[in-house]
């Protein structure tokens, strides 16, 4: 080998060479010490030789015991932290179908969803038939929808109908203090599922709030959180459809409130959560059935019209309806009613929608201020909104609010035109204009109204192309997401300025209109405010009476 070849070799392998030499030196020293030790031992007198030999078995025994103890401790902690015991175990236990006990008939409403899910249940039940045809069993079902719409409830009904063991988990359980805990817990969950599937012919895993772990994978910004998140989701992907997977009759049902595109695309692709079920808030007919279902569980007056309740509970989820009926039963007990009355339900509705009355003490001046503030909202809402009725006006403090005006449409609004949004802005600005007109100044109570108005105006311009300058597009679709999950709008500063100007123009236009209306209807404003001060709360009928007295009609009535 030439000199240059030696140099090249050294450059490539210098670490190995040094480590090898050090290892050799250590080994030589060890051998030398061993030889010297053996020699010295041989030269010892017999008594000391015997003493040395006699102590060796005891030392060996103690060494073995110590090794066993430390091995045991190490194994225990490894198992506890990483391999399926203790910290790596999820807190929840397997739930038997009999314990779940949510029948298919208990799932009220959402007929179209039930139809889709029923098909999935039949596929799970009749695996044999599916295999004969040559089809593949569904791996995962993803349920997407707003909170309280029955995703978990539906999953329980699936478990009961299929008769398979049910392993519930929540996405946040896979987020732990140490990196690797999520992965270990995921492994532990699927390991248990495989065992149950072997014993029972199948198993259902239900992961609620899967968005905790199922969002897009990201780069780690330090600290290991990103690594842990990616590792957990990778483990889930592998368990669902990885290289080593065999057919194991495990069906994973997941539920989330976020949009499907916010989840990692590898999760939602075919072969994993291929079946997506969208669970929306119940419509009128479904709400009626829900009220009938929940009221059947309590004593109520026969005169209660569930249709009317359903109309009133526009936008309620099944959980809201259940909560409303529950609240009504408590109110009935408080009022010493034998049965739930319509009034109890009405009070319960107010609690669910507007919140509990609070104990804030208001001075007379504050009450006057709030009365005119709310009167502004109510008048503008009644006179300008194309779809919504003003159902309640109140100056009784509730939750965080000192007063409230409630408005809702008669039916669900699926497509909201520009006028709808402008009317919403005008309602929000009604309080500001009313304070200005009445007191010549404004207060701090308009902050949430401004927030709502500004957000609506912003969306009109930035998302729906309703700005005056004619700028079109959903400008948020141009947002770029980096590897760390941070988003940045890909819009120039000049364009941003134009869009902001359009937003302000909408607000100014709405405010001008509102000021004109309230200036024109000053007498009505005064009367309404005084009525509020006198009664504290005005219900729908009372509000309609006031406006009728002044010969005012709603825009939707005018169109008729």
């Amino acid at each position, binding site marked *: 080998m030439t000199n240059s070849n030696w140099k090249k070799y050294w450059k490539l392998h210098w670490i190995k060479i040094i480590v090898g030499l050090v290892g050799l030196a250590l080994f030589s020293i060890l051998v030398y010490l061993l030889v010297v030790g053996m020699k010295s031992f041989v030269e010892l007198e*017999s008594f000391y030789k015997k003493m040395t030999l006699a102590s060796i078995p005891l030392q060996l025994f103690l060494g073995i015991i110590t090794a066993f103890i430390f091995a045991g401790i190490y194994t225990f902690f490894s198992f506890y932290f990483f391999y399926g015991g203790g910290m790596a175990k999820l807190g929840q236990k397997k739930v038997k179908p009999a314990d779940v006990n949510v029948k298919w008939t208990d799932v009220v409403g959402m007929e179209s969803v039930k139809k889709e899910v029923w098909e999935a249940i039949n596929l799970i039940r009749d695996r044999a038939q599916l295999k004969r045809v040559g089809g593949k069993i569904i791996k995962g079902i993803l349920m997407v929808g707003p909170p309280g719409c029955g995703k978990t409830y539906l999953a329980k009904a699936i478990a009961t109908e299929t008769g398979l063991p049910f392993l519930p988990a929540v996405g946040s359980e896979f987020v732990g203090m140490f990196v690797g805990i999520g992965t270990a817990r995921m492994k532990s969950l699927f390991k248990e599922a495989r065992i149950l599937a072997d014993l029972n012919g199948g198993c259902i895993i239900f992961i609620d709030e899967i968005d905790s772990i199922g969002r897009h994978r990201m780069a780690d910004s330090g600290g290991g959180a990103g690594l842990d998140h990616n590792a957990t989701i990778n483990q889930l992907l592998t368990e669902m459809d990885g290289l080593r997977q065999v057919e194991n009759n495990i069906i994973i049902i997941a539920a989330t409130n976020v949009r499907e595109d916010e989840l990692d695309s590898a999760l939602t692709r075919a072969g994993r959560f291929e079946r997506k079920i969208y669970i929306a808030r119940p419509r009128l007919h479904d709400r009626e059935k829900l009220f009938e279902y929940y009221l059947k569980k309590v004593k109520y007056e026969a005169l209660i019209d569930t249709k009317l309740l359903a109309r009133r509970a526009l936008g309620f989820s099944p959980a809201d309806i259940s909560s409303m009926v529950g609240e009504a039963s408590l109110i009935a007990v408080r009022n010493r009613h034998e049965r739930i009355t319509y009034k109890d339900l009405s009070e319960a509705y107010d609690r669910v929608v507007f919140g509990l009355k609070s104990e804030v003490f208001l001075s007379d001046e504050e009450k006057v201020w709030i009365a005119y503030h709310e009167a502004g909202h109510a008048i503008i809402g009644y006179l300008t909104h194309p779809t919504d009725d003003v159902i309640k006006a109140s100056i009784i403090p509730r939750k965080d609010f000192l007063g409230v005006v409630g408005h809702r449409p008669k039916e669900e609004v699926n497509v909201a035109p520009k006028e709808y949004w402008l009317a919403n802005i005008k309602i929000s600005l009604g309080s500001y204009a009313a304070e200005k007109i009445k007191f010549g100044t404004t207060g701090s109570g308009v902050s949430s109204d401004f927030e709502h108005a500004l957000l609506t105006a912003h969306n009109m311009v930035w998302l729906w192309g309703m700005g005056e300058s004619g700028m079109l597009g959903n400008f948020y679709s141009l947002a770029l997401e980096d590897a760390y999950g941070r988003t940045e709008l890909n819009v120039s500063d000049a364009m941003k300025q134009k869009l902001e100007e359009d937003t302000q123009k909408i607000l100014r236009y709405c405010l001008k209109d509102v000021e004109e209306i309230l200036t024109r209807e000053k007498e009505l404003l005064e009367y309404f405010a005084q009525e509020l001060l006198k009664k504290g709360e005005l219900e729908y009928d009372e509000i309609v009476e006031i406006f009728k007295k002044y010969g005012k009609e709603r825009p939707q009535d005018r169109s008729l």
Partner: protein
Amino acid sequence: MVKNALRTVLFSFFILSCCACSVSPSYSRRDIESTIKNLCKQEFNIDVKVWEAGDTIWVYSPFEKIVNSKGGLENDVSERIRRILLSLRRVILSMENRPKFYCFVASDINVGFDLYYVWRINDLVLFEVGYISLGDFQEREAFIYALNTKALGDTEGSHISRYDIKLGEFISYLIKQNIEKKFNSENVKDNFRINDLRTRYYNGKLEINFNIMIKKYKEGLLYPFDEAVAVTKKILKVYDYPAEIKEVTIHDAFNKKSRFYTRKALIEDK
């Protein structure tokens, strides 16, 4: 991994067993005298005289000066004595059929002064294996000193009468030594005067005679007779009430008190 570990353990055990089987005594009883002499000479360049008398080994070393002006041993003397005793121990411990006692005699041949160190070899073994502490071992050493004009100029040790020491005799030396130590200790020596203290062992009988006067009485003072009884019992217990001591008589001449014990009574009266 478990298989490998098991193989290593078994192999080591086999090797050790082989080593253990090949441990034969390093020294022979037959050549004990020459062995001790040669070892002292080779290791430390020290000349000693060695005799075997029954089950007792006698070692003699003459010195020019043993005691210094302060009444302790000269530095080089204690170092030399330490080396001789080290060699002695090495040989005795690594020999088959060990003797029962060994006695080292150091003589100041200029002054005529003898020092005797007597140990029971079994006690040495117990100390070496850690069964008894250094303090306990030192308490089991009989140390006797006496002026002896016959030691003057005796480099060969001919003035030493060498005999086979018996356990009873050894115990009697220890009892005397311990009683003396007790009444000469710093906190009581001003209160007592030992007029006479003699111990004797013959034909299975152990006699302890003493005359200890109380010079100055104080509260909680030791009672000589009781202390003598306690010391005797303690030492006999250490050696497990040897069968060769059949009777013990303790006589306090100062208080005119005597006690007689049989071996059985001593065992029962623990």
